């Protein structure tokens, strides 16, 4: 009998996955030299996650890998990961990855008498040795159960298999299909007890959300929530949702809103850097114009700005803004401004969040505009929306990014009561609306709140000219405050 290894006081050695977000929630990666089980229903992304772990290991961490596939041929697999931007064939050519497609077809196999799976072991060993693999993926070993009758042999061989992998010192990822009431159909979790990750793909009201949860991770702390993740052209990204604490760095620095008159209303200096700004108003009141001014000003200072437009395409936005004297195009060409459009209904809320997260991490902007956030909110429940905005605001604040959100309010709802209770998250809140002055109706702007500065309480007329936004004194009395439309 083999003795149990002595318990190590040191923290568990880990093999980084290189997948954005996953290393954060696992606090460093998967357990090195041990097997990890990735399970989930069909189409949840198990195979891709396993393959990406292997590929990133080979390309980013100088750890060659062996890919043992039971379901897909090497060609099919290469094709699938190519959609994530990975070239498996090239890695095989460079001897960084070895692939073996193990085909077991019960209809072709007759069984008589005793046998074991030594052939499989030899193949694993051969694959590992051929590239000096430090990582191995078995996708999905449950296929063996469909190929052989003798379950007792299979179970004892599986146990031997995991011992074999540990002895070889490879970091292994095993995938398994989710079963009824258990993590995997064949109870693989019984054999792999070091780390179990569950993937989930659910569809609510026709939008799909992918989520990941670490069910267990022996000998280490880890995030225990369900984390949304995304599979796109660059592979996996997981949203860690960490840092939900109020300990962001705080800046005294101010950044211009892009409208001099508005800066004047804000203590003469504009927004605080790293603060969150909400511009809300009814349709056609000039929210996007205000956002565009801010984006342009930011880019003009040479600071990167990410503008997420959920209602207009970049071209349309640039054209429309040009008519009010805001030319965004040169900044886009220079690379200081990035315009990104997508439809809010394209993904679920969390997917959008993951996407924003990813773009911010890539582009590293000093300012982010989300125009508008209302569409998301309409697509989801209030609790979800609030949770998402909280995460988003926290994330941006932690990075000292000045964020400007626009929000479309419907004419009937009480404005100040808005807005899914996000007021507490917002530092500076600007309101745009139509008001009646005497016998005419004008657009007006006022500062509802602005934390940490003495701001103007005045209602200004909001005029959009071909040269930009102007804020004029309202002639005469605007009645008692502002009348609602």
């Amino acid at each position, binding site marked *: 009998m083999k003795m149990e290894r002595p318990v190590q006081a040191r923290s568990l050695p880990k093999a980084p996955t290189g997948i954005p977000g996953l290393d954060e929630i696992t606090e460093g990666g998967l357990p090195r030299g041990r097997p990890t089980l990735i399970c989930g229903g069909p189409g949840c992304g198990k195979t891709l996650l396993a393959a990406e772990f292997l590929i990133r290991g080979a390309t980013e961490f100088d750890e060659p890998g062996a890919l043992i596939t039971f379901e897909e041929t090497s060609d099919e697999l290469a094709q699938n990961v190519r959609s994530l931007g990975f070239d498996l064939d090239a890695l095989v050519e460079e001897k960084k990855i070895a692939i073996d497609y193990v085909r077991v077809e019960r209809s072709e196999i007759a069984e*008589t008498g005793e*046998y074991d799976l030594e052939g499989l072991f030899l193949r694993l060993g051969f694959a590992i040795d051929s590239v000096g693999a430090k990582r191995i993926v078995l996708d999905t070993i449950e296929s063996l159960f469909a190929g052989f009758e003798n379950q007792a042999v299979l179970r004892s061989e599986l146990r031997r298999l995991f011992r074999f992998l540990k002895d070889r010192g490879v970091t292994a990822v095993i995938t398994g299909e989710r079963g009824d009431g258990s993590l995997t159909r064949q109870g693989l979790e019984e054999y792999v007890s070091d780390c179990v990750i569950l993937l989930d793909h659910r569809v609510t009201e026709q939008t799909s959300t992918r989520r990941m949860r670490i069910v267990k991770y022996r000998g280490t702390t880890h995030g225990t929530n369900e984390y949304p993740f995304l599979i796109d052209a660059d592979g996996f990204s997981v949203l860690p949702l960490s840092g939900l604490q109020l300990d962001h760095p705080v800046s005294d620095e101010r950044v211009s809103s892009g409208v001099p008159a508005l800066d004047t209303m804000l203590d003469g200096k504009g927004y605080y850097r790293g603060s969150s700004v909400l511009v809300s108003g009814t349709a056609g009141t000039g929210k996007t114009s205000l956002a565009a001014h801010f984006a342009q000003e930011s880019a003009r200072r040479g600071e990167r700005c990410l503008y997420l437009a959920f209602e207009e395409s970049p071209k349309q936005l640039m054209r429309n803004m040009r008519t009010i004297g805001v030319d965004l195009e040169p900044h886009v060409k220079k690379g200081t401004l990035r315009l990104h459009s997508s439809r809010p209904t394209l993904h679920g809320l969390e997917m959008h969040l993951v996407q924003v997260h990813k773009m911010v991490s890539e582009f590293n902007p000093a300012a982010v505009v989300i125009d508008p956030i209302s569409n998301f909110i309409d697509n989801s429940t209030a609790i979800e929306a609030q949770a998402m905005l909280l995460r988003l605001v926290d994330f941006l604040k932690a990075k000292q990014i000045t964020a400007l959100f626009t929000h479309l309010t419907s004419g009937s709802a009480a404005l100040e009561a808005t807005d899914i209770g996000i007021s507490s998250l917002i530092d500076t809140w600007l309101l745009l609306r139509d008001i009646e002055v005497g016998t005419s109706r004008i657009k007006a702007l006022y500062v509802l709140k602005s934390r940490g500065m003495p701001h103007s309480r005045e209602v200004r007329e909001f005029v959009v000219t071909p040269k930009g936004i102007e804020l004029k004194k309202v002639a005469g009395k605007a009645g008692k405050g502002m009348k609602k439309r």
Partner: protein
Amino acid sequence: MTPENGSASEKWNLRLYTAGQSPKSLAALDNLKRVCEQHLPGRYSIEVIDLLKNPRLAKDDQIVAIPTLVRKLPEPLRRIVGDLSDTERTLVGLQLRQIK
């Protein structure tokens, strides 16, 4: 189609995959020889492939279980895993049953 009897001149080409001299592998070879002598006297050939010596062949020939017997000829290709201790099932697997 492939008649279980085959023509008397039909050549049988069998390949047995083993991993070293394990008891199961040795038993399989013994059992195989016995069956062949009985049912295919003079018209069979057995090739034993030790995968310990040549692990690459496990991949190339899609071997998972040990021992595995592969009937290369006559076609179609058949695979039988196990030590062939169950003669009845071995014969069925090899499609030699009716000869019995």
